[in-house]
Structure formats: C-alpha cells, structure tokens
C-alpha cells in the first residue's frame, strides 16, 4: 500500500486550490447579485407607488363618482364601494365552502377521496383568473346553457362568484393545514369524554385553529381584492354608484386597468392613487397577519 506523499499532493494542488476558492467566492458573488436583482423591483414598485400615487390622493377620490371621460376631477367612490360589496359577497359564498373543504381534507381526507379532492383544489388554484371570468360569464352572464335559472346580464353577483372561485382553494388549503396542526391530544381528550367526532371538530378543533383559519381568510381576501381579470366580463364596470348586486358594479382593480389604458393624465394619476390604496391595504393585511401569526403563512397568489 503505497500512499502518495500528502504534502506533495497538496503542493501540487496549491494553484488548483486557489482556483477552487476563487470559483467559490465568484459564485457567492453571483448569488448576492441575484438577491439584489430579486429585491430591487419591489423597491422600485413601492417607490413609484408613493411618488406617483400620493399626489393623486384627495378627499374627492374617496367621495366623488367618476366624471364623464375627459372632464378632470371626480373620484372612484363607486369603485371603492363596489369592491367592498363584491369582496364581501365573495367571502360569504367562498368561506363556508372553503372551510368545509378544509375540514373534510383534514378530518376525513387521509384516503383516496381526500387526494381526489386535493387534486381538484390544486387545479382550481391554478386556473387563470381570466378563464374563471369567462366561465362565470358563460354560466351567468351569457347563460346559454341554461344550467342556472339566472340573470342573463352582467351583475355584481357574477363578479362575486368569480372572486369566490379564486378564494376557495387558497382558504381551503390553509384551513386544512391549520386543522392538522391542532394537537392530537386535544381531540383525544374530547373523544374520551364521549363526544362524537363531528362535535369534537366543531367545538374543539375548529375554535383552536380559528386564528390560523382567519389568517387564511385574510390572505385570500388580499388576493381577491386586487383581482381585475375575473371581473372584466362578469361584474363589468359601472360609471355610477350602485349597490344592486343584480346590476353591473365597479371595482378598484378594474378601474385601475381602464384608467391605465386610457388617454388622460388625470386618469393615470388616479390609477396610481388607487394602486397605492390597494397595495397599502394588502400590505397592511399581510403585515398584521404576519405580526399576529408569525411567518408560517405567507401571501401567495
């Protein structure tokens, strides 16, 4: 067993060693550059939101209806209220379904039925919002198939339904995760008292996981609050103030889209201001959720 002299090997490879160390440092440098590239857009976006958005903020924006195109001034009161109504309605429709799904997946879902439903939830989470918009359009607005005994025109309800479809997979997944975090011992204590499973879930498991589920709902809310594509062909838009859910309704994201495409400078200014309000709302929700519940759950759209 002749072992080659170590010192000889090490000397022979001194140059090689320097190269290896250089490559290591180079790659670390490349990683740092990548981090900068990844973080810079956020700062640029936030910077311009403040720079362009703050001048457009005014009381009128919150209290006035839009003027006819071309006439400066006016506000987006109708869009603010419309967004609020449709997001609220979407929560009403979506949250029970999502929480029910989450309960089923965590309590009864460790089998084929569970993976089956989980698969569809994943697919649902991945459907482009524009496709959801067209689905709801064809289901409710066009209503050609006659599957539902409804409407036949653009309505706020259709918009809310599209938002609810976006909401369900987000909230369902977080609900399942949160319910699974509830310690076994808590359930067992309840079973030991003779409580049936469903009562255990409703009285013990669900209340314990409630903060986490609320987090999920908040995150879902911040996702649908910024959604425009799903509303384009469902709720359409409305120049005027409306609270009728059986009529077209305006929303903030859709109005940003319209104003961004439009020719008037004051539209662009208002679009920036609305974006600032929207992003600030979403970021505040995200920060509050994070402060309350830690980093386990994060915003993902």
């Amino acid at each position, binding site marked *: 067993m002749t072992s080659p002299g170590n010192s000889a090997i090490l000397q022979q490879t001194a140059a090689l060693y320097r190269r*290896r160390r250089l*490559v*290591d440092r180079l*790659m*670390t440098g*490349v*990683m*740092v*550059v*990548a*981090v900068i*590239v990844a*973080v810079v857009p956020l700062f640029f*976006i936030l910077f*311009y939101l403040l720079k*362009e958005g703050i001048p457009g903020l005014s009381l009128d924006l919150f209290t006035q209806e839009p003027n006819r195109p071309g006439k400066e001034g006016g506000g987006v009161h109708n869009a603010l209220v419309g967004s609020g109504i449709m997001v609220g309605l979407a929560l009403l429709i979506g949250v029970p379904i*999502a*929480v*029910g799904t989450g309960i*089923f997946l965590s*309590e*009864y879902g460790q089998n084929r039925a569970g993976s*089956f439903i989980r698969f*569809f*939830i994943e*697919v*649902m989470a*991945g*459907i*482009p*919002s*524009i*496709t*959801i918009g*067209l689905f709801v359009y*064809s289901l409710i607005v066009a209503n050609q198939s006659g*599957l539902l005994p409804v409407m036949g025109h653009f309505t706020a309800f259709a918009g809310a339904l599209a938002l609810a479809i976006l909401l*369900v*997979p987000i909230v*369902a997944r977080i609900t399942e995760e949160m319910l699974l975090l509830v310690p076994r011992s808590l359930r067992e204590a309840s079973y030991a008292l003779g409580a*049936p*499973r*469903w009562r255990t*879930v409703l009285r013990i498991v669900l209340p314990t996981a409630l903060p986490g589920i609320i987090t999920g709902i908040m995150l879902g809310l911040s996702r649908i609050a*910024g*959604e*425009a*594509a799903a509303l*384009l*062909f469902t709720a359409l838009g409305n120049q005027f103030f409306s609270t009728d859910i059986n009529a077209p309704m305006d929303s903030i*994201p859709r109005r940003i889209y319209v104003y*961004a*495409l439009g020719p008037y400078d004051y539209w662009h200014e208002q*679009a920036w201001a609305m974006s600032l309000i*929207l*992003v600030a709302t979403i970021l505040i929700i*995200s920060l509050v959720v994070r402060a309350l519940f830690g*980093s386990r759950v994060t915003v*993902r*759209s």
Partner: protein
Amino acid sequence: MTTRDLSRPRRPSSLQNRLQLGDWTFRTLTGLAGLVAMAVIVGAFYELGSQAWPAIKHGGISVLWDTSWNPGRQEFGVGVFVIGTLITSMFALVAATIIAVLVSLFLVEVAPGYISRPVSYLIELLAAIPSVVYGLWGIFVMGVFVRDHFGPVVVSTFGWIPIFDGTPLITGLFSACVILTVMILPTVMAVSRDVIAAVPRSQREGLMALGATRWEMIRLTVLPYARSGVMGAAILGLARAVGETLAVTLVIGNSVRIPDNIFSPAYTMASVIANQFPEATGLHQSALIEVALILLAITFIINIVARLLVWKVTGGHRAVVQE
C-alpha cells in the same frame, strides 16, 4: 339535514348508531363542500366547451398552430397567441428559476438568519402586489425605461443579431417577459427555498468533511438532490406565467403578428381574451372562449405534471435518505 338522516330506518334507537349518523352527516356536508372544487373544474370544462363549440367546429384542431387571426374574415388561428405565450412564459420560467435558485441558495446556504428572513419576506411580498398594479408600473415606469434607455443600448450593441434589431417601445415582448419574471419569482423562490432547505444536513456535512468549498458542496449535493423539487417549483411558476393576464395585456403591445425581435409588440392567449372579448360577438367570441378553454386544459395538464413530480420527489426521498 341532521334530522332527515336520523329518521333513516337504521336502528336509530341505538346511541352508537346515532353518533355515527351525526358523523356521517358532518362528513357528507364537508365532503360536498370539497366536491365544489371538482364541480367548478368540470363545470368550467363543460361551459367553456359548449360556448367554444361553434369555433371548434369552424376551425378544427389546426387552429392551434394556424397563425392567421382575423375576426373580420372569420379566421381564428390562435398560433400567434400560442407563440406569444410560449415565448413570454418560457423566458419568465428560465429567468425566474435561475434567479430563484441563486437567491434560495443564498438564503439557505450563505446568509445568517437575521438576513435571510427579511430578504425572503421582501421577495414574497412581490406576490402580494396585484397584477394590474404590475401592469401600471410596467407601462409608466419600466416601459419608459426600456424605450428611452435600455432598448437603444441593446439595439446599438447587439443590433447586428436579428432578434435584437427592433424598435424599443413602451410596450412589447421584452417588457412582458420582464414583468412576468418578476411576478412569478416569489412563487418559484418560495418553493425552491423550501426544497433546498430540505436537503439533509448529513449530505452537506458529508461533502464538507471531504474538504469541499461551499460552492462545490452546493454543486455536488444540494443541486442534484433538490433538482426535481426545483423543477416542481418552476412548473408552479409556469402555470402562473401562462395564465397571467392584465399585467401582460398592459405591457405586451397587443399585436396579431409573429414577433420577429424582442421588442416587437405581441399577444398572449390571456391578453387577447382580455383585450378583444368586450367587442367580440358570434364566432369571434366563441373563438376567444376556445382560447380560455385551451388555457384551462393547459392548467389541468401542468397540475398533473407537477403532481407527478412532487410524487416522485417525496417517493424518492423516502427511498433515498436514511434519516
């Protein structure tokens, strides 16, 4: 619901049985909620399919690669949009994955916790910004920069290469690619970071103990080990990029022609729907719904592929690691 189930003639007198019926009801109710997801998917395929049927009958399968889209002449080939979607989402996929993996490596392997946590959070915040806000920023900030500064430099430097020889405008293919990259970055980063963090410590130590530098350790164990998981992350990003609508609609320029350079205006499948649907009627509308149907089918397929990959990763891990 409960009372009706209790009235079923299945020995309701027995307490045990009544408990089971309560459970059965609860399970059925929550299960029905779960089935809503399936109903939505099936319903979407059915609704979009039936609305798209006239266009499908009209154009057949060849519309997928046919590049002549002319509603006036009743030509509805979606090839141009398929190309636009392919170019933008592939660019975003590759760029975002490379950046995301490098960032993940930095966060997991290099940076101490007090740096990696805030950085990671900042990048995840990118996911919280709505699509339409990206679009707004894309036109008024990035697009202007591309037209006035970045574009001219690229054209004068690389203009001799055909794909760089164009007229940089505010909107165009390049702007769409960049916006999409930024938008899917947080998704890809979050998943690949978790995948890389899941590489067992024993593997890293094994290589470090042989005298590897950190990069050698990453190249020889971390990356091979995390490869399929990173692919899964990339596919999740791809799904987002393919369906992304308004940001792209605002910055891509919306022109029905095959792009011949990186600054050409173009169209994606999602952006043509957003842009043309309001004025579309009859067969034109049906053709746009067909595009939505194709997007839905792509989403479905991507999810199946991602699922298989994830299954492979988790299945593989169990066999591979003795932890």
